[in-house]
């Protein structure tokens, strides 16, 4: 028996690591964690569709535009898994997302629709699966916007541990409290030395005051435009108002936690037919055109149409599965 103990230990360790790597299948609503691959990439589509590729673990072939999807067409979370944390039992869509920590199922997001529970949250509020609700007006307070402008793209900036600590504290603050003290959010972001970059559904245009477009990337901490719509897109694209002529919107946004602008990837609200051409479902690089087409993102679902739009995106550090596996196998061989 004793000689089997090391093998059992290694086997258990292997099972644990495989589970950690998401090889045992995606999480369901009851899962305590997201598949690890969702730390790498997570997104949502613009519209519902039927997968003809990998069958989801729950057996339902209909993929909602509110579901969180991952690499190789896994389902990171059904919409009900995300909003269920708020005692919501209907699909509300998924408009913005940032997967903070797959291990603790910590996901920040916004919905397409207001909560059916009256006054609980709007489609412009920032929600986190730990129960946090940060009202849209708190995000916009540094811009002195006294109403809800929607939340279309989302990216937390800063040290991961600080972000988790901030969210832990934020989860204890009721929505009404954020509204009572609109400056509190920016203060806490400064205190934790983090930021929330985001985009809105509507533009702000006030005579005599600097406004912003729904295609600009904004800072909730500093109340500034982090990247204008014109900076996000190559110079050949007529992006930005009034100088170049068109607001392309900013429908999804992701970058590394250090806030390196060169790492920004995003999608727009409308397509462009000039050079470089792109659709509103393509994943674009900062100032550099298409990084990944919509079809590349969704192809493995084998949908009946090659375009499904892109509504939310989260991109993290690549999990080096091969490295983990090599380490495991090395360990196993030693035994």
């Amino acid at each position: 028996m004793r000689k089997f103990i090391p093998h059992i230990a290694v086997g258990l360790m292997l099972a644990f690591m495989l589970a950690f790597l998401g090889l045992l299948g995606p999480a369901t609503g009851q899962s305590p964690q997201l598949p690890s691959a969702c730390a790498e990439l997570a997104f949502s589509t613009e519209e519902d569709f039927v997968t003809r590729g990998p069958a989801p673990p729950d057996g339902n072939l209909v993929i909602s535009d509110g579901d969180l999807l991952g690499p190789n067409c896994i389902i990171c979370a059904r919409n009900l898994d995300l909003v269920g944390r708020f005692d919501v039992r209907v699909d509300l869509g998924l408009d913005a997302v940032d997967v903070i920590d797959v291990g603790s199922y910590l996901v920040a997001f916004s919905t397409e629709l207001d909560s059916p529970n009256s006054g609980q949250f709007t489609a412009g509020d920032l929600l986190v699966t730990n129960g946090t609700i940060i009202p849209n007006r708190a995000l916009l307070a540094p811009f002195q916007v006294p109403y809800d402008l929607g939340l279309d793209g989302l990216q937390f900036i800063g040290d991961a541990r600080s972000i988790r600590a901030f969210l832990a504290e934020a989860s204890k603050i009721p929505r009404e409290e954020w509204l009572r003290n609109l400056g509190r959010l920016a203060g806490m972001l400064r205190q934790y030395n983090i930021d929330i970059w985001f985009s809105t559904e509507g533009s702000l245009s006030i005579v005599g005051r600097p406004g912003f477009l729904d295609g600009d990337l904004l800072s909730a901490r500093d109340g500034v435009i982090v990247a204008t719509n014109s900076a996000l897109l190559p110079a050949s694209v007529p992006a930005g108002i009034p100088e170049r002529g068109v607001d392309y919107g900013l429908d999804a946004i992701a970058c590394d936690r250090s806030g390196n602008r060169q790492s920004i990837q995003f999608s727009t609200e409308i397509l462009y037919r000039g050079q470089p051409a792109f659709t509103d479902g393509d994943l674009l690089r900062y100032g550099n055109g298409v990084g990944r087409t919509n079809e590349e993102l969704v192809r493995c679902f084998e949908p009946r149409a090659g375009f499904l739009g892109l509504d939310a995106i989260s991109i993290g550090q690549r999990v080096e599965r091969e490295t983990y596996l090599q380490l495991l196998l090395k360990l196993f061989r030693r035994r």
Partner: protein
Amino acid sequence: MPTSQQAHLILVSRKGRVKMKKLATILALIAIVSITLGVPALPISGQGQSNLTACSEFAFSTEEDFVTQGPTPPDGNPVISDGDLLGPGCVVCARNRELLYGFDISQNIDLGLDAVDVLDVQRQMVVFSTELDSPNTGQFTAGDLIITSTGGRGVIPNIALMHRFGIRYDIGLDGLQFIGSIQQIIAFVEEAIRIPRGNWVQNPALLSDMLRRRSIDIWFSTEGTGPASAAAPQVFDGDLLSARDGTIVVSNGGLFPASVPAGIPNNGVDFGLDAVATDRAGNLQLLLFSTEILFSGTPGFTDGDVLQLGNGVVKTNEDLVGCFEPKARFLGLDALSISVERPACGAAIIRVGGMPAGQIGATTGLANGLSSTTPPFEAHDSPFGGWVEILGLMPSCTECSHFKVEYGLWPNPTTPPSTWLPLTDPFQEWRFIWPGLFVLVNRVPDANGWLSILCNSTMGGLYYPWNTSGKNGKYSIRLTIRETGGTEHVSMPVVVMLDNTAPTASLTLDTVPICGDVTIGDVVTGKITGTDLHFYSYRLRYESSLASGDILPVRKYTSVSDTGDTNVAFSWNTTGLPACGYRIILEVWDRTIVNNQRIWGEPGFGWRTPLQIYFCLEAAQ
């Protein structure tokens, strides 16, 4: 929240307290005038009522903001918001703040425009939804149906629309179309604006009851997918719904040709339903709409195109917004309102040069597709030339008396004409007199181009043959119909590209003299040129009574920017050909529809320039 009328009376009251005696008479007069003229639903600022009239038949909004490089809006602001209501010819019918006027919302705030139905411009009655919730807590959400009119403003909450589907939460409002008698719809709206939003919320069944009572309906689409339930069908955001009956009027799959994989779960994809419009009778064959996502299959479409039920694209996004001359040709389509009901004297040009007006590019003026002539021909990015028949939709002969056709030259390729000239040339037109008499009548417009309406014309509508000889370039034409009472109705302009210039052709031989002799076995070499602004094809052949053939393969145009070739070398080996009199003939064609027809069969088309060289091919001595 005070209405503007109440606000006005408050103003009267406050002023009166300050200088009651002195101002009383003046303020009372102002109050009387205000009440007499009616409380403005949209602010009358030079762009209120008059511009909303421009949207009586067609209105839309874009997905994103942009700067117009074309017509400058009356308020001088070239930035067009995705919340503004736009009309034909790139008119700004109402700014977003004008739609929201009276809701006590700051003029700086733009809430977007997600769905619209322009019900009655005289009453300035517009129903719509916004992209964002009202900044006034509890006033309305982005899913509510908002009403503005001279009679007041109202809000029908989303849950009232969804009540018959058993959905008790706000699921958004993306497309909107009132169905039924316009009188009953107006009466319903006037009743609805008197009902506070809270009453609808407390009694959401009230809406369907009121709709049934007036035999009208509200067709709409949502932003989100509804939950599956046993009590009602599951709704997708691509389905067209009935608020009265709680049924799906047309599922997403039913909107598209069979080749589009629309509909869940059977076909695989929900394409959404972002904008919708049809006639008030609810004729599904006339249903026009736009989607949330594009489709790159066949028939391809973008989420900014206007599609017809089961029939693909009827108007591209570029056709809609091209006259704004935006820096990008795609701006999306978020809301659409089309009055399919035609006024008795409503003016529309339906055919130009034998081509249905819908087959002519709204910005290029070039025709494509099959003609409506007998026999039909197919146009390929074709301009027009020669006599160009203009046909207008026949109006009511009892209510309308005269019509005229006007044209305007585009000063540059991107600027529509600002001045219009009437067509005044006389012509002849066949008239039918019952029971079997055809009479050719002389038609002589007056100096302003006015012609009486000929009710028993055999031409198929209001007919005018335009002699375009000598004209080249981009023109717009428009039709005006005058009511017997004098009111004039102007059609949407149709852009037509004119080309009355024959192609350029040259044919030179390197060694053979004109009318010289060629010996069998010689290789004849030379160069040709065949060009035109609207180049279609050229062909170089040798011909004799004993033998004929191509020297160069037929060269056809590849795109609208293809203007042909210059100095193309050729060589013709005469070995084996019989001795005879020969000619080498170069023919160059353009793509012009000349005199309402395709003059030439393949590989020719419109204007032709032929060049030929004759000589004798003789046996060696």
